[in-house]
């Protein structure tokens, strides 16, 4: 056999695992050629606008539809055969909520869908929606999770008898900590936020009579999970549903749930024969999707005078909103809080009680970092309070308690299995880079402009790509198992990869191609990654939990290894050698005296089978491979963030002067993409720290319903951080990769709040609530002044 053109030439730069390969998808994205839901045009497409509840809690007395619109307005009475959305936690004591896709009897949050209106354009649909009159009898609203548990509170779901989805308690020997010399107690709250991806949600539904199939185009991170939920709600078999999730403009968790809108539009397509579209507008997103991050902690940390942690005792409340959202349920946040509050530290005693509370707000969803951002905020602020109480540097207190590298892998007090890493080293590099000593000198000198300087640090470890046992243990109704990927060699030697995860900014079309290139040697330009379509991809729970590089990357790697083995066997036939005499190297089947490349193997297999003997392996060049890491307890990436701020105590303004991130995500498949992930996460973390908040009034009315009121960080608010990388491979995953996608958003609120509190410490002021708005900072300064005035 002679060599034909090899698929990859050795003189080119590395393009496999570890290469900073430019993103394959950038060509279409940067030229504005992406295809999002709103770009889809189908014949006869009509627009849907919803009549949404203007109040948080009310009985529906009547819905008045003008006679001329009776054929284009639909309410719950019209929706025959539709079941409500149910996301039932498997944990004992969980109270089930049923979320009707259009309100039945009652409305339970502002923005809840009451009727859907179909028009020739969105404007016309909105005109129709405006003509529908609701007769509502207001009920007292449950607007504050801390008051929701009080006796006599209004009830979101009357038959529960209270407003608690689930109460949990986890304890390890808390009594052993109670005699500690240092005992610091604080109440900490984090604001309710919106995720605000650039692209909102959107749905286009149509029915294909040839295939007898509903086709739902939807901006979803988890198309197969949407199909599960939709099949349940519509009561039809899964084969009659095809979910297509095209390009997605950011997900962050907001695009991880089954929407009532998806069910409604599916019903229109199936029962009314309409091809319909709904595109979430920014006002809908802000008022009806204010849905993450709202926690309240009452927390006590026990420590010795030398800063050693003796234990943590915490009561945490999560405002879960009115309904348990599908598939993550109302209790994921609380389950996470209880299990990850100890952070990257060792401690001998721990207790955490959690309450997932129902309120008259829209359902809570897991936002990038999920509960970790709040947990990191609570724990890291408390550690600074301990440091202040002990008269120690915050960095010192952390170093004293971090899990040490020689103890890895380490099972912590909540049985989290930290796989690998050097946490103290990350922290020390961050402290050195931000130069705490220099900040202390500068603080003593004072600033010419009267501002106060502070520095703060935070460190976390993040369980990612956690699998079956973890999710089953948390009672989440969606449990990931083995991940699959299909690798198909095309007759011209190209490669198609089919995966059930999705890519909404992560660059998976590039990184998965890098994994395949690493194993098969196929030019990444000749690798197509197909995702976002239930008809074309293997089942997957989708992209969430920083799992896709580990899980889909592992599945692609496994499929490619199996494909390589098959190609080797075919190559052996072509080389006229026994299979065991041939090995797979550099994208070629190599024998002692010659080799054959993948393109030729593919060409022979598909186009010239007459060149192969009859006893060739018949399985072909398309493989679906399955993968799970050695353990499914997750990878633990980690990072230390350090920041120096200048605070104007009279205006409450915070300027970020310097920002350092030291991160370890194991082996990085594409370090450039990881840098982008971290920078994006940092921007969101700064939003959480300083800007983003959806306040509600006593009637549970959301108050920041435009972007003039709901502030997002922009270019002027996000400094260029200094990124420092460490690399400790995970012992349990293919290539040693770890999940890294969410991490950037976890640590900034804690680091920034600690820096602000460090700056304000001479004034005696302390903030324990995010975001650190100018008003809150000034109020804290004034309160401290008042307290110090005799």
């Amino acid at each position, binding site marked *: 056999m002679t060599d034909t053109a090899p698929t990859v030439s050795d003189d080119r730069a590395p393009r496999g695992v570890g290469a900073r390969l430019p993103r394959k998808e950038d060509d279409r994205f940067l030229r504005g050629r992406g295809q999002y839901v709103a770009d889809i045009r189908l014949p006869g497409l009509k627009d849907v606008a919803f009549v949404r509840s203007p109040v948080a809690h009310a009985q529906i007395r009547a819905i008045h539809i003008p006679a001329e619109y009776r054929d284009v307005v639909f309410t719950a009475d019209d929706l025959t055969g539709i079941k409500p959305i149910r996301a039932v936690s498997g944990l004992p004591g969980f109270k089930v909520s049923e979320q009707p896709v259009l309100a039945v009897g009652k409305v339970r949050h502002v923005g809840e869908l009451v009727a859907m209106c179909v028009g020739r*354009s*969105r*404007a016309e649909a*909105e*005109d129709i929606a*405006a003509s529908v009159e609701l007769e509502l009898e207001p009920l007292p609203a449950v607007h504050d999770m801390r008051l929701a548990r009080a006796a006599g509170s209004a009830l979101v779901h009357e038959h529960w008898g209270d407003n608690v989805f689930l109460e949990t308690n986890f304890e390890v020997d808390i009594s052993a900590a109670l005699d500690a010399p240092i005992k610091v107690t604080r109440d900490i709250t984090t604001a309710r936020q919106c995720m605000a991806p650039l692209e909102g949600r959107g749905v286009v539904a149509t029915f294909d009579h040839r295939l007898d199939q509903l086709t739902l185009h939807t901006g979803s991170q988890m198309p197969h999970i949407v199909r599960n939920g939709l099949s349940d709600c519509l009561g039809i078999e899964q084969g009659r549903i095809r979910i297509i999730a095209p390009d997605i403009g950011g997900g962050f968790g907001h695009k991880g749930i089954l929407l009532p809108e998806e069910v409604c539009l599916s019903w229109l397509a199936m029962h009314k024969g309409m091809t319909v579209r709904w595109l979430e*507008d*920014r*006002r809908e997103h802000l008022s009806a999707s204010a849905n993450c991050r709202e926690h309240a902690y009452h927390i006590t940390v026990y420590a010795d005078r030398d800063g050693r942690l003796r234990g943590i005792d915490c009561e945490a409340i999560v405002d879960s909103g009115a309904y348990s959202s599908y598939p993550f349920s109302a209790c994921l946040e609380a389950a996470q809080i209880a299990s990850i509050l100890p952070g990257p530290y060792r401690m001998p005693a721990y207790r955490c009680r959690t309450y997932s509370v129902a309120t008259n707000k829209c359902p809570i969803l897991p936002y990038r970092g999920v509960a970790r951002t709040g947990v990191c905020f609570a724990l890291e602020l408390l550690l600074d309070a301990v440091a202040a109480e002990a008269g120690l540097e915050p960095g010192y207190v952390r170093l004293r308690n971090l899990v040490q590298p020689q103890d890895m892998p380490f099972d912590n007090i909540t049985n989290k299995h930290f796989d690998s890493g050097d946490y103290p080293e990350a922290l020390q590099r961050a402290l050195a880079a931000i130069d705490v000593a220099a900040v202390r000198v500068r603080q003593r000198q004072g600033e010419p402009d009267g501002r106060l300087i502070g520095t703060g640090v935070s460190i976390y470890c993040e369980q990612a790509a956690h699998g079956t046992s973890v999710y089953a243990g948390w009672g989440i109704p969606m449990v990931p198992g083995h991940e699959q990927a299909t690798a198909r060699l095309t007759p011209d030697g190209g490669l198609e990869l089919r995966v059930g995860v999705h890519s909404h900014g992560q660059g998976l079309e590039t990184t998965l191609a890098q994994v395949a290139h690493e194993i098969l040697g196929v030019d990444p330009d000749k690798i197509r990654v197909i995702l976002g379509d239930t008809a074309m991809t293997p089942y997957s729970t989708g992209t969430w939990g920083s799992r896709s590089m580990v899980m889909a990357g592992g599945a692609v790697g496994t499929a490619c290894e199996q494909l390589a083995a098959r190609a080797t066997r075919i190559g052996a036939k072509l080389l006229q050698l026994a299979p065991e005499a041939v090995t797979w190297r550099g994208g070629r089947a190599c024998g002692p005296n010659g080799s054959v490349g993948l393109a030729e193997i593919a060409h022979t297999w598909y186009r010239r089978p007459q060149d192969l003997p009859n006893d060739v392996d018949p399985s072909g060049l398309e493989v679906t491979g399955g993968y799970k890491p050695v353990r499914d307890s997750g990878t633990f990436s980690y990072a230390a963030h350090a920041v120096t701020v200048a605070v104007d105590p*009279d*205006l*409450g*303004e915070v300027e970020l002067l310097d920002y350092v991130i030291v991160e370890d995500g194991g082996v990085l498949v594409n370090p450039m993409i990881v840098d982008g992930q971290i920078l994006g996460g940092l921007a969101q973390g700064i939003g959480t720290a300083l*800007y983003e908040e959806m306040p509600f009034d006593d009637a549970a009315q959301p108050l920041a319903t*435009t972007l*003039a009121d709901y*502030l997002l*960080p*922009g270019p*002027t*608010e996000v400094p260029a951080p200094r990124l420092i990388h460490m690399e400790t491979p995970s012992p349990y995953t293919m290539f040693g990769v770890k999940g890294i996608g969410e991490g950037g958003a976890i640590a900034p609120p804690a680091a920034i709040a600690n820096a602000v509190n460090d700056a304000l410490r001479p004034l005696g002021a302390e903030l324990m609530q995010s975001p650190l*708005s*100018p*008003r*809150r900072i*000034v*109020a804290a300064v*004034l309160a401290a002044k008042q307290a110090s005035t005799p």
Partner: protein
Amino acid sequence: MKAASFAYERPRSMSDALALLAGADGEARIMAGGQSLGPMLNLRLMQPPRIVDIAGLAELRSVERDGDALVIGACVTHANIEDGRIPDVTHGVLPRIARGIAYRAVRNRGTIGGSLSHADPAADWVTTLAALGARVRLTNSKAQRDLVVTEFVQGALQTALRPGELVTAIRLPSLSPTARFGYAKACRKPGEFAHAMAAVLIEPDLSRSRVVIGAIDTTPIVVDDSSLFGGAITDVRQRFDRDLACRLLMQAGVSDPAARHIHLTVLARAIAEAAA
């Protein structure tokens, strides 16, 4: 977020515009850049049956000198002021203020007369032009009248405009060479609406001062009797009567102590600049 349907008129001349307004029975909204009106229409906070777009009228985009004063057409954009495309009689105050309004995209279309007519208490022009002693020219199909800014702005989003009337120009007196101006505002982010704002003008030649506190829920607080400085116009930084300013803010409904502290800080900084 689509506007309710409305009739859209783009008159070719001032007289056409005034005739349209006169015939609209008070039901027309004027669009003079649309940077505030546009979002309000899309949010359906306003559903006027008719929009009269005057942004293209040449008469309203011109600037002329009238003796010592500068008469700025209502539809001169913030960007044109920022870029120095109109004469400056304020020693740089006007371009400086324009530069701080929202974002460049907004400044490219937003107009000085549109901003005043919208009368958002947090708008830079409301506070600044009140401090500079500008007069607002209101015109209808029959007559015109001039009001000082504090007469024109009657509350949050409320003005003295009558049905059929239009802001056509702002008449700005020249600042004397010895005049001193100070300005400060507090915003959550550059370009966002201010949550505190103050402008201070000290005119030694005329022995007078004017202090304006904006970004409150009502019409700006204007103090033009130097009472905030004990009746003097020298050493204003030292003489600043913070307690009096605090009382004025409380009277204006600023009940939150932290918000008041921020207003007072911003005011003190504007005064310090004017005194420097």
